[in-house]
């Protein structure tokens, strides 16, 4: 009886170890294939090598830090509709904004507009107080209105962009909005909308040429 139990136990333990080996086959192979250490060197050589490595690391850190903008900069998260205003490593302000709606407006196969905020690194190219919005063609097409001539008075709207605007180029602006309840939502035509208080802060703390990172 005892022999039978021992035999059964042996078969069971062998089966379990076989199964474990199969299940962890790759881990076992990896462990066996990666045995071995890097070569050892004597103490003085090691100290010299360590000091050289530390120097190289410091130099690389300096090079990386050189990429940090010298002035305040703005980061815009177009997925979460948030902005982060930085001064070096320090976060000065984080709050809601509104970015592009990703609407593809189609008038015809040839005439279509995509309302998305571009991603990448930009600079403040121009700063305006009391900006006037010159409505582009899509603003009329979107509302089912006929498109007027280039300088028609109906193209000019006063007060809709808030007290300030900062230009990023290609018609993209950071500006205010009359529809503050939509802040935090993707509702714009590609521009970045802020509330009045944040717009003033950004306008006053970002000099011309300051960097804006949009992702």
């Amino acid at each position, binding site marked *: 009886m005892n022999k039978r139990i021992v035999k059964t136990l042996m078969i069971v333990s062998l089966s379990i170890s076989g199964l474990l080996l199969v299940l962890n086959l790759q881990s076992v192979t*990896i462990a066996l294939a990666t045995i071995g250490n890097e070569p*050892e*060197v004597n103490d003085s050589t090691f100290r010299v090598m360590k000091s050289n*490595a530390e120097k*190289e690391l410091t130099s690389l850190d300096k090079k990386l830090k050189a990429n940090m903008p010298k002035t305040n900069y703005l980061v815009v998260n177009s997925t979460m509709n948030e902005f982060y205003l930085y001064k070096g490593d320090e976060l000065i302000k984080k709050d809601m904004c509104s970015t592009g*709606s990703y609407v593809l407006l189609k008038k015809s196969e040839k005439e279509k507009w995509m309302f998305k905020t571009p991603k990448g690194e930009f600079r403040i190219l121009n700063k305006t107080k009391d900006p006037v919005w010159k409505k582009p063609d899509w603003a009329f097409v979107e509302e089912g209105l006929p498109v007027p001539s280039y300088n028609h008075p109906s193209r000019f709207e006063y007060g809709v962009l808030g007290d300030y605007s900062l230009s990023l180029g290609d018609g993209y602006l950071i500006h205010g909005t009359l529809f503050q309840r939509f802040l935090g939502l993707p509702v714009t035509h590609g521009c970045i909308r802020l509330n009045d208080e944040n717009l003033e802060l950004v306008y006053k703390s970002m000099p011309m040429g300051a960097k804006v990172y949009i992702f």
Partner: protein
Amino acid sequence: MPKFISSKMEVFATLKSFFQRYRKPVIAVACVFGVLLLLSMFHLASAPILKLKEWRNQDVEMESPEFVNGLDSLQRQIAFKKALLALPKKDSISLVLNVPDSSLSLFINGMSIYKVQLAEMQIDPLLKRLGEREYWTQFSKPLRVDSSRATIVKEPIIEKTAPKTQEEFLASVSQPDSLVYEPTHIQLILENGLELFLSQEENSKKLDRRAKRQFFDSQRTNALSSLVTSVFTFETMEYRPQIYLVAPSAELTSIYRALPEQPKVVIYYN
């Protein structure tokens, strides 16, 4: 005698008579399955060795350090900083995984612009046990993403036909709703065969659990089909070391949508 014992014995008797009747074919089938099992085991076991060999055979840059015992931590930091400095300078957004920091960041022109704290990380055993030379060949430079798949779209485009009249426009005006995040699971396959999985932290809803199961089931099916193909075609099976990262859905969505189609990835671990 209880019924289940009698039925069990009947089954055993039927099996015994079947085996006696078709002994040779049964042994032949068992042998075929045995050989297939052994071949599968061989392919599974040899795959990581072949990957390691491939990485070992890659040329190390001229300016690589001398690899000695005890300097691994410093040398890995140097490799990381070099890889960061080698990232593209042309407005391209890149992904940086810093394991000691438990963070995943977006980099643009050498600047970290967004950092996500990871809730969970799992690193492949091959990567954990990698020697310094192989580490340097793989991770001292940015790695290109060769292909990717995800449960979310890259750009959530909404197509709208322009209204013909102002009345039509007024009738179509709708209030924008709050932001909706779909279950987020992302797989990035890097140029050296490494697979990076970014998976959302939230899994309390049934919909979330189903999306996760479907995403990873298809991954497992692909791995199995690759093993079966390698067994039947006598070709080597590619081992793909995996890194599994968990973070909140909204933050992973932000990261995925920020990256270009074929972004560069920098990985650092100790």
